[in-house]
């Protein structure tokens, strides 16, 4: 018998022991209640960057990293929503912001209709027993000098449980997560536990107060392959037995597909696609979602084949690309997607890994500093290096001729010589909005669809 499924009623009995007002209802998607458990409206988390000290004296703004930018998301009670994306996509920041662990700079987060962002620590604390978190690294999220029992007991003590009641609640929580017999595990220090056991202890600490929402930030990605299925199975049991609502943050689409009711694909602080899991995986709409799905290595060797991988990596959030943030990597981009002068550098560098050394040397000296070219009002001036402006125009024409299919050129309206450089003018663009696609329940932020 698997201890995971041993005592489905333990959790509720524990919540009763804590005298919490609301006991989680049977959860699930049937009979959708009108009021969402968590409602996120237009949420942004921007981190301002420290400019130079002189710049600050002169009142120059040094910009901000838009870690989370304009997110709308509602979670129904008992629902599991996956936030999926690469590192730097803002998925962890969004999860932390919900628990008040990241500074919200705009928009609101409501819990059962009550706004919770901006609450003082004192007002937030009672809510923390309802909103809990499981961190990625189980080795770092347990205090090495506290036994597992103490770590759980500490959480109970902070939330006002008396010393007499605590041992029973600790044991119930430990046995609920499969650390049975509890008498064996409660006196252990984290260093005496394996990775999977530590993550179970972390989950026990999170559920001991009878929470309604668990934010699980990559809970299985640091674990050994054979343990991942066990921890994911445990979370699936908890969700079923305790009616927990989950925000499941991951970069692993396979586990998201198994565990989530809905998935939100994030890229550079924004949701690019959100919808029911089955629909998103069966018919991915956004080119980024399609790329993510295609990138998963398939354990079936007979499926070996060439895949169309997007080039490059997730860009710097401090300087996000114009238009759609994914356009420099998107295989399906077209003129309106936000092409700009910075993209030229990527195209050139990619070309220079393929041509021979002489071509590289003769071409690269034609260009001035490529890093400094900036697009303003859809126009940009590329300065020549050695040689005249005409030489640069000719070189650019040769490069374009070599690979006319390169999608960068789709966004270039004209290339004209000017006295001090070559002027590029690009097609006007806008940031794609997250809009629903008819009859699918899926929302996509991509110019291809709107």
């Amino acid at each position, binding site marked *: *018998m*698997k*201890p*995971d499924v041993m005592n489905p009623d333990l959790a509720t009995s524990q919540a009763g022991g804590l005298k919490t007002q609301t006991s989680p209802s049977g959860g699930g998607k049937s009979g959708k209640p009108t009021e969402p458990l968590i409602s996120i409206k237009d949420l942004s988390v921007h981190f301002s960057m420290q400019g130079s000290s002189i710049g600050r004296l002169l009142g120059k703004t040094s910009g901000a990293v838009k870690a989370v930018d304009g997110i709308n998301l509602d979670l129904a009670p008992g629902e599991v929503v996956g936030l999926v994306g*690469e*590192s730097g996509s803002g998925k962890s920041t969004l999860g932390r912001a919900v628990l008040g662990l990241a500074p919200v700079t705009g928009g609101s987060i409501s819990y059962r209709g009550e706004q919770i962002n901006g609450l003082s620590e004192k007002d937030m604390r009672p809510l923390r027993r309802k909103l809990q978190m499981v961190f990625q690294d189980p080795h770092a999220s347990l205090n090495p000098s506290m036994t597992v029992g103490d770590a759980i007991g500490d959480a109970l003590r902070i939330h006002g449980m008396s010393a007499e009641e605590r041992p029973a609640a600790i044991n119930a929580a430990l046995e609920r997560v*499969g*650390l*049975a017999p509890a008498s*064996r595990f409660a006196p252990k220090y984290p260093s005496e536990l*394996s*990775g999977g*056991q530590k993550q*179970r202890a972390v989950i026990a600490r999170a559920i001991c107060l009878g929470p309604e929402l668990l934010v699980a930030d990559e809970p299985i990605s640091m674990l*050994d*392959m*054979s*343990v*991942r*299925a*066990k921890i*994911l*199975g*445990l979370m*699936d049991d908890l969700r079923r037995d305790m009616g927990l609502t989950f925000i499941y943050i991951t*970069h*692993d*689409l*396979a*586990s998201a*597909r*198994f565990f989530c009711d809905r998935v939100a694909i994030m890229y550079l602080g924004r949701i690019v696609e959100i919808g029911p899991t089955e629909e998103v*995986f069966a018919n991915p709409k956004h080119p980024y979602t399609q790329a*993510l*799905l*295609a*990138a*998963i*290595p*398939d*354990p*079936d*060797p*007979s*499926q*070996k084949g060439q*895949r169309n*991988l*997007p080039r490059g*990596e*997730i860009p710097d959030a401090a300087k996000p690309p114009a238009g759609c943030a994914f356009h420099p990597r998107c295989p399906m981009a077209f003129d309106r997607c936000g092409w700009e002068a910075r993209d030229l550098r990527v195209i*050139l*560098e*990619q070309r*220079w*890994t*393929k041509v021979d*050394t002489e071509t*590289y040397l003769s071409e*690269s000296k034609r260009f001035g500093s490529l890093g400094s070219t900036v697009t303003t009002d859809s126009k940009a001036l590329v300065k020549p290096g050695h040689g005249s402006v005409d030489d640069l125009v000719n070189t650019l024409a040769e490069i374009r001729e070599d690979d006319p299919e390169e999608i960068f050129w789709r966004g270039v309206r004209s290339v004209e010589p000017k006295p001090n450089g070559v002027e590029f003018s690009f097609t006007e663009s806008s940031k794609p909005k997250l809009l629903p696609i008819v009859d699918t329940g899926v929302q996509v932020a991509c110019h291809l669809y709107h």
Partner: protein
Amino acid sequence: MKHAVDNGAGNRNASRSNPTARNVPAGDVLTTKLMEPAPPKADPVIEISDLRVWYAGANGPIQAVNGVSFSLAPGEVLGLVGESGCGKSTLGRGLLNLLPPSAAVDGVFNFDGTDLLAGNRTEWNKKRGAGLGMIFQEPMTRLDPLMRISDHFREAIRTHEKISKKDADLRALETLRALGIPPSRYKNYPHEFSGGMRQRIMIALALALRPKFVVADEPTTALDVLVEAQIVRILAEMKVSFAPAMLLITHNLGIVAEACDRVAVMYAGQIVEEGPVEQVFARPQHPYTRELLKSTISLTTTELNSIPGAPPDLGDPPKGCYFHPRCPDAMAICGESSPPEVTSPNGSRAKCWLGSLESVSAAGRAPLQRQELSAADEA
């Protein structure tokens, strides 16, 4: 102690008598099927026989690698999979003599016709770099932040070869370009590159010396999904452009399917199954391989499976087959004596009593009586 080892061609199939198998009723070991003649191929770059690695532990020696044998042809990529603590990384580092001083290595490691483990082993250290390359796991911490990429390459190349800076640069640029790093970035510092580019640089650093054999230890673990896919593609392309024989250590079975020719499944310091990837993944012979494949979460997963328990303490491994306490198919004999290695006609080999059932008595085939494992005993 050393065992008689067959060093002939195709010795990855060498059938050795296992010391723990000696208490098996006479004849059992001999009934091990003889290997089929291996298909003719190029001379192997490396041949490893009966490699053993011990660590000094508080309660006596810990046998981290226990009698591993395999060989690799030029350009051949062998994936090494298994749970943490099964000796994968120890094996990988052991081949490059990068283990801590408390480790002892024994066995036969033929590289380029010399046994690097024979004699005083100075030859072994000399081979590292130019002959034996290594790609590490964390590209973020392996490059010196105060050195330009160009200096990394000049130092690495000129330590091993007496060539001018200019020639070293040419070699470096050629390698970098093959891995998709533009020459315009050659003079940059490591922090100016993204994680994926740094891993490409690490791979280029290993390849710039044109090693014949490379150990890649979890080269994509710290990377994002899309970047991981790019690196896996590069590893697959390396087979064509640079053709080093490679030992690719990973826990991602998808990557093995994608980039490897053969796969070795390691459990508790032993290779329990090895063979062509298609063969092993489609028809795993060892229950551990089968359970490992089943427990992988993939896009088609509808039901979670896992292997109960955890790998054994290598300081005190169980009697018989090391996997028997966790094995769903365990028989009485599995808890008694170590299974022989059986090679099937298609070239894959497995260490499991199920492969030589005809030599097991009826009593030995009875299902093993044992205690239930609880989820708490996991890794």
